[in-house]
């Protein structure tokens, strides 16, 4: 399971794997590396979902629904089978995703059928200060806020975060409020849920 292995190694939520087993994309730092600049900038996660939603093609919509189900945690495994157009290039040959500990892989085999999204369908993947490809709200977090977000996602309260990072409780409280505000959440847990959904915190 190349895709599964890629997920484990990259701590990614979703990995895109070529037919020859080459990992071409993950939603974590790997794909944003300078050395991989030639990789296709395939939007992943919520971005990928948005891109597929742009298509009226029922097959693309089916894929979008499948991705949405994974992102929402409703399924941990599904497959979509169809025939690709042999005359057209395929930019995705398989996608695997892992959600939660022990979850199964998601495999979408030959999903695209040779239809590559146009440039306008490819949201830019922005590198955050820590090196991971953060998009939208997530990229506005400072490195310290990202650390705090990771610990929030582990269920730690502010006292525990302060002890772990060896900083003042009031400082942690400021960071937590900033994280919530920057992620556009109404609450601590909504911020954490959003971060998980978008792959901004480690899954482990």
């Amino acid at each position: 399971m190349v895709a599964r292995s890629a997920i484990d190694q990259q701590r990614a939520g979703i990995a895109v794997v070529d037919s020859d087993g080459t990992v071409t994309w993950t939603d974590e730092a790997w794909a944003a590396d300078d050395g991989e600049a030639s990789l296709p900038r395939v939007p992943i996660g919520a971005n990928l979902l948005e891109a597929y939603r742009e298509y009226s093609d029922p097959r693309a919509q089916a894929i979008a629904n499948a991705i949405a189900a994974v992102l929402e945690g409703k399924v941990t495994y599904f497959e979509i089978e169809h025939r690709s157009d042999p005359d057209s290039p395929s930019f995705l040959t398989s996608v695997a995703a892992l959600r939660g500990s022990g979850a199964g892989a998601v495999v979408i085999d030959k999903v695209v059928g040779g239809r590559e999204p146009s440039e306008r369908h490819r949201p830019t993947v922005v590198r955050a200060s820590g090196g991971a490809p953060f998009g939208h709200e997530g990229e506005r977090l400072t490195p310290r806020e990202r650390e705090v977000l990771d610990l929030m996602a582990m269920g730690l309260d502010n006292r525990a975060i302060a002890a772990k990072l060896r900083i003042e409780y009031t400082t942690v409280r400021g960071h937590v409020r900033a994280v919530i505000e920057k992620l556009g959440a109404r609450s601590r847990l909504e911020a954490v849920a959003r971060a998980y959904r978008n792959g901004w915190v480690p899954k482990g």
Partner: protein
Amino acid sequence: MRPAVLEFMREAVDRPNEALLCFGEPGVGERLLRDLEAHMGHEFTADRRAGRIMVGEAHSDVDQQLENFIAPLEELRARGFALVRFVGVVAWDVRHFPPPEDFLWFESKMNEVIAELPVVGLCPYDLARIPARGIAYGALETHPFVLCDGVLRENPQFIPPDRYVRERLLRLPWLQGEGLS
């Protein structure tokens, strides 16, 4: 307030080596104490003045609420009480209370907070005020024991706090785009 809850509180008042904390929305703790005074037939002004009986207030910011809860427990512990009883009156999606998902996190977190303290607590869930989701995710999944029809039972639905965030909170329907109702 239900007699079972008042009896639970009364034992703390009756035993000088125990203390009592009433926690809830602003004003709820005071009301709870008035109910208890009526139930017991006398006032306990002296115990309140001495700080053996305390009132804690919920807060719309869950971190502040956690502090409002922990601080009096730590104070009572430092003063050497053998046992501190608390009653936490539950509310759902109301002003001066954390949003439901944060409140559920608080409920689960309390288990960790009191694990190291000589503390025992009771959280009344009013079935007329709390929606089914609040009962299912809060009452049933964040409490190791449930008092139902006057009988204390071990709760098979309980999810330990170290698993609660991933196994429940991140899967809450309204955080997945569904409504809260």
